[in-house]
């Protein structure tokens, strides 16, 4: 009915364009009909007036008939929707404050959920964009010693390819060495090099965009390479003639035969470096390995396979176990024959992210969803209040003929509009926050930061969530409005008491739910903050102040044939030590906590298996870090390539392997292994433990050898020279020292100028960076939740006080104390808060297991944290309740009684 009026009065452009003619025709026909009938009646002798009246009556209800006739040209459902949209927009314009609060609240919830969903999608759901990525699996060889699986040898892969039926194709790959460069003028470009089997790209289901893939027979690919799209664009200017041209990778000249499509990446790691792939020729690799290691040639690759259609992972696993059993029976080594009889097959995507990282991300996502729920509950409360104030208007519509469904439709449309606006705002918030946190995400997530612009799946998910939000938030208010009886609402002077205690109580329950959920977020936040505090307090075993660390990754190929220690490291170190203001400088294969290059040493000594982490250090390293010696001495200038080979171990090593476990000194002089033939190593000192891997994990046995004793003919030498870190102790400010360091680096090797330089403080902080990131996120969520909660509580109480003004006035007039009224309101607030805290404590207890993986130094069910969070919530809630309470106490009875 309203739409009829609307069109009559507005004659909107739609009607004007298409239907005016039709409506005119109709009106003319009807007019004509009545006129003709009247004329006929007049001919029978009736007066004009009587004739016209009779004619009209005989016709029927003209307005109703006109409307029904017009309906043939309308789409009633769409028109009613459009009318609802216009109406909702008018409402929003009239009450901009309400709309702003509702939209802002929902935007917070939707934005948080979208941001976390973007991360979860990038890392867990769709980490790789290969065709049918779900069918790609990694195949490892398992043994009793390493049940989790180890990489297979080429001979294994060869046999698997021949004997297995489960796979469409088996591919393999391996790294190209630590640092690789595309050598060109003026500066070389560092690249990420990967060596792949000729069928790897086919197995992934990707083909080069330009040029062609490797030829399938390994031998015929010598000297070729395929480059990535990024490299092609940035370095070669997207020159289409790249195919066939020569490039220099490290010390080899290769011909480019193809360029991969944009966005393709393999393997998927968090790295900005452009990629280059070269083909593996297993025969050549085997020959090279034969030459190097006297005796057994063993070449290891990582195996990646695509399941045949219709084959399940479990079936493949079973078959491969049998196949590997047959393959192992052919091994020459008796131990291996018995031991390596199984395989471990896992979906490729799952191998990119560890289980605990996945769990942690999902927990954070759950926290974001909790925030979203709080926002939805908050807005439901707001809409309920508004529905009550619009009671009369809705009753009027009902009286004029609107059905319940129509009222429901209108409120749902309104909810969708609010939710839609909030989702746009929330999307913006999400993009902004991913951008802000991009650096931390890149550093701490296994696959780097997600792309900034969301793709269509994320937008689709956001759309679904928007609709769900609207449905949830409007469900209760709409149902309530549609069901409300019409007549009492229309009665003049409708007493406000008609809203009922029932509704107030239910709204109070909603606020309590918000309080409960906020408590869970605050507790998780508190636990994480305590974790970080605990991590900061852990004694590391070395000093971290005033230390600068530079990562010296040398391109090996530039120094082939030369003694890298003598020609590069020693001179560089000497020059650094001469800088004024440097107290001490040393180089180490990896600085503690820096996730540098690490080698695990496994020796069999007198039948005992000894494992230790191996490090190569220079003598002054101890002075830089202030490490404490338990027994013996550290390396000194007396240790040279020709003197006795010495090794320093740590307390954990002593505890595990010393003859006398309680006396580290008993290790001194003990022989252990050898640098090379005729150069046995003797333990010369024992260091106190230090946290090397991570602050939270206790120390592992370590052994350190000195760079000063390295010569190129030692097997360890390659490890020693691959990648070293320079640590200097200096009390001068960073900005004075760094440029001097860089110029020394540049003199030593141009590629080193860009070396990463960081302070030890930063490295330590980064080592628990993922906890800091999580803490920051939870701080944000917790603060937002607290704000919403408090606002919700305040809103409800203010509303109730306003509703009860009359009653409060009566109470005061009858002699109630103002303090008593204050207490009344505070008591109501207290009931909601306490109820919420009690339920919230239960929720927090149940959900604490989700954050357990992040914690250190505090238990997930810690009582103090819970108490602190609860106290914080209660305090904020009571403060928020104080204002309405004071207003209640300050009611002027005369005005209140006059007001109704």
């Amino acid at each position: 009915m309203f739409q009829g009026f609307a069109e009559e009065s507005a004659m909107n452009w739609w009607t004007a364009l298409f239907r005016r003619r039709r409506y005119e025709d109709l009106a003319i026909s009807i007019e004509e009909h009545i006129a003709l009938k009247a004329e006929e009646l007049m001919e029978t002798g009736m007066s004009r007036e009587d004739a016209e009246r009779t004619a009209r009556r005989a016709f029927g209800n003209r307005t109703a008939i006109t409307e029904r006739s017009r309906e043939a040209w309308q789409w009633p459902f769409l028109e009613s929707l459009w009318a609802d949209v216009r109406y909702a927009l008018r409402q929003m314009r009239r009450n901009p404050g309400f709309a702003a609060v509702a939209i802002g609240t929902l935007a917070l919830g939707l934005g948080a959920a979208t941001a976390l969903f973007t991360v979860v999608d990038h890392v867990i759901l769709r980490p790789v964009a290969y065709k049918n990525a779900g069918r790609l699996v990694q195949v490892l060889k398992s043994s009793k010693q390493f049940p989790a699986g180890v990489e297979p040898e080429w001979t294994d892969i060869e046999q698997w390819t021949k004997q297995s039926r489960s796979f469409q194709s088996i591919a393999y790959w391996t790294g190209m060495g630590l640092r690789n460069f595309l050598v060109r003028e003026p500066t070389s470009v560092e690249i990420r090099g990967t060596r792949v089997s000729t069928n790897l790209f086919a197995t992934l289901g990707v083909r080069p965009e330009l040029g062609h893939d490797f030829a399938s027979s390994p031998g015929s690919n010598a000297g070729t390479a395929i480059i990535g799209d990024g490299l092609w664009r940035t370095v070669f200017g997207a020159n289409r003639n790249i195919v066939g041209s020569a490039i220099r990778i490290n010390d080899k000249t290769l011909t480019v035969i193809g360029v991969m499509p944009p966005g393709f990446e393999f393997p998927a790691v968090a790295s900005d470096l452009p990629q280059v792939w070269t083909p593996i020729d297993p025969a050549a690799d085997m020959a090279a390995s034969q030459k190097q290691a006297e005796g057994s040639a063993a070449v290891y690759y990582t195996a990646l396979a695509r399941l045949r259609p219709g084959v399940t992972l479990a079936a493949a696993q079973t078959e491969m176990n049998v196949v590997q059993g047959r393959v192992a029976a052919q091994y020459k080594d008796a131990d291996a024959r018995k031991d390596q009889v199984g395989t471990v097959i896992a979906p490729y995507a799952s191998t990119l992210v560890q289980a605990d990282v996945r769990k942690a991300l999902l927990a954070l996502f759950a926290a974001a969803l909790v925030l979203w729920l709080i926002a939805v509950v908050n807005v439901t409360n707001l809409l309920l209040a508004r529905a009550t104030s619009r009671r009369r208007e809705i009753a009027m519509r009902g009286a004029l003929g609107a059905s319940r469904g129509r009222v429901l439709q209108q409120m749902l449309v309104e909810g969708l509009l609010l939710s839609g606006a909030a989702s746009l705002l929330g999307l913006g918030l999400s993009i902004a926050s991913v951008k802000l946190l991009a650096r931390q995400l890149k550093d701490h997530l296994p696959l780097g930061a997600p792309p900034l612009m969301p793709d269509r799946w994320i937008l689709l998910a956001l759309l679904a969530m928007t609709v769900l939000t609207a449905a949830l938030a409007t469900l209760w208010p709409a149902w309530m409005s549609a069901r409300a009886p019409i007549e009492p609402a229309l009665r003049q002077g409708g007493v406000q008491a008609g809203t009922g205690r029932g509704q107030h109580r239910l709204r109070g329950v909603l606020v309590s739910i918000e309080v409960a959920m906020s408590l869970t977020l605050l507790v998780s936040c508190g636990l994480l903050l305590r974790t970080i505090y605990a991590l900061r307090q852990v004694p590391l075993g070395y000093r971290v102040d005033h230390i600068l660390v530079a990562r010296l990754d040398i391109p090996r190929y530039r120094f082939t044939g030369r003694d890298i220690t003598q020609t590069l490291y020693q001179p560089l170190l000497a020059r650094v030590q001469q800088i004024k203001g440097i107290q001490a400088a040393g180089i180490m294969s990896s600085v503690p906590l820096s996730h540098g290059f690490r080698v695990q040493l496994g020796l069999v000594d007198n039948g005992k298996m000894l494992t230790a982490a191996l490090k190569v250090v220079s003598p002054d390293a101890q002075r830089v870090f202030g490490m404490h010696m338990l027994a013996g001495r550290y390396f000194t200038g007396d240790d040279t390539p020709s003197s006795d080979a010495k090794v320093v171990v740590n307390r954990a090593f002593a505890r595990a392997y010393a003859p006398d476990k309680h006396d580290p000194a008993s290790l001194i002089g003990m022989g252990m292994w050898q640098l090379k033939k005729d150069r046995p190593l003797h333990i010369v000192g024992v260091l106190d433990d230090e946290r090397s891997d991570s602050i939270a994990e206790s120390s592992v046995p370590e052994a350190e050898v000195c760079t000063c004793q390295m010569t190129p003919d030692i097997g360890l030498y390659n490890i020693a020279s691959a990648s070293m870190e320079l640590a200097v102790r200096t009390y001068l400010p960073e900005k004075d020292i760094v440029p001097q360091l860089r110029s020394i680096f540049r003199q030593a090797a141009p590629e080193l100028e860009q070396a990463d330089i960081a302070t030890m403080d930063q490295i330590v902080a980064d080592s628990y960076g993922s906890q800091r990131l999580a803490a920051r996120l939870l701080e944000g969520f917790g603060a937002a939740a607290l704000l919403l909660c408090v606002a919700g509580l305040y809103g409800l109480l203010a509303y109730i006080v306003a509703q009860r003004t009359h009653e409060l006035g009566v109470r005061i007039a009858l002699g109630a104390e103002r303090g008593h009224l204050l207490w009344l309101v505070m008591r109501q607030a207290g009931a909601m808060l306490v109820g919420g805290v009690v339920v919230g404590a239960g929720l927090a207890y149940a959900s604490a297991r989700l954050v357990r993986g992040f914690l250190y130094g505090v238990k997930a069910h810690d009582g103090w944290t819970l108490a602190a969070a609860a106290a914080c919530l209660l305090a904020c809630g009571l403060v928020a309740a104080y204002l309405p309470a004071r207003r209640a106490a300050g009611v002027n009875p005369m005005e209140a009684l006059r007001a109704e």
Partner: protein
Amino acid sequence: MAKNTERRDLFPGAMEIMILQSLRQRPMHGYGLVKHIQQISEDMLDIEEGSLYPALQRLLREGLLESEAGVSTKGRPTRIYRVTDKGLKHLEQELSSFERMFAGIIRVLRTAQA
């Protein structure tokens, strides 16, 4: 419509067939159409005059009729309705189906009587 067994509601589509058939004989304006139906049916059908118009508009919408503007002899603006080819085809189909249905009902009633 009165729930009176003397006068029953028209079955769905009845009004449309009658309009189409009437207009097929000669195009008319709205009032003329009403009078025609009343006359021919000899008042056996009790149709509210205005109820024709929603049906007319529906037929127009579906393209079974077309309307033409004109001026009546008295100088009044008028709209004449005429059946289209599509309308004729639709009418034939409906008539034959109506006759079949009617014949079937008659047969059942006759055998019941016998």
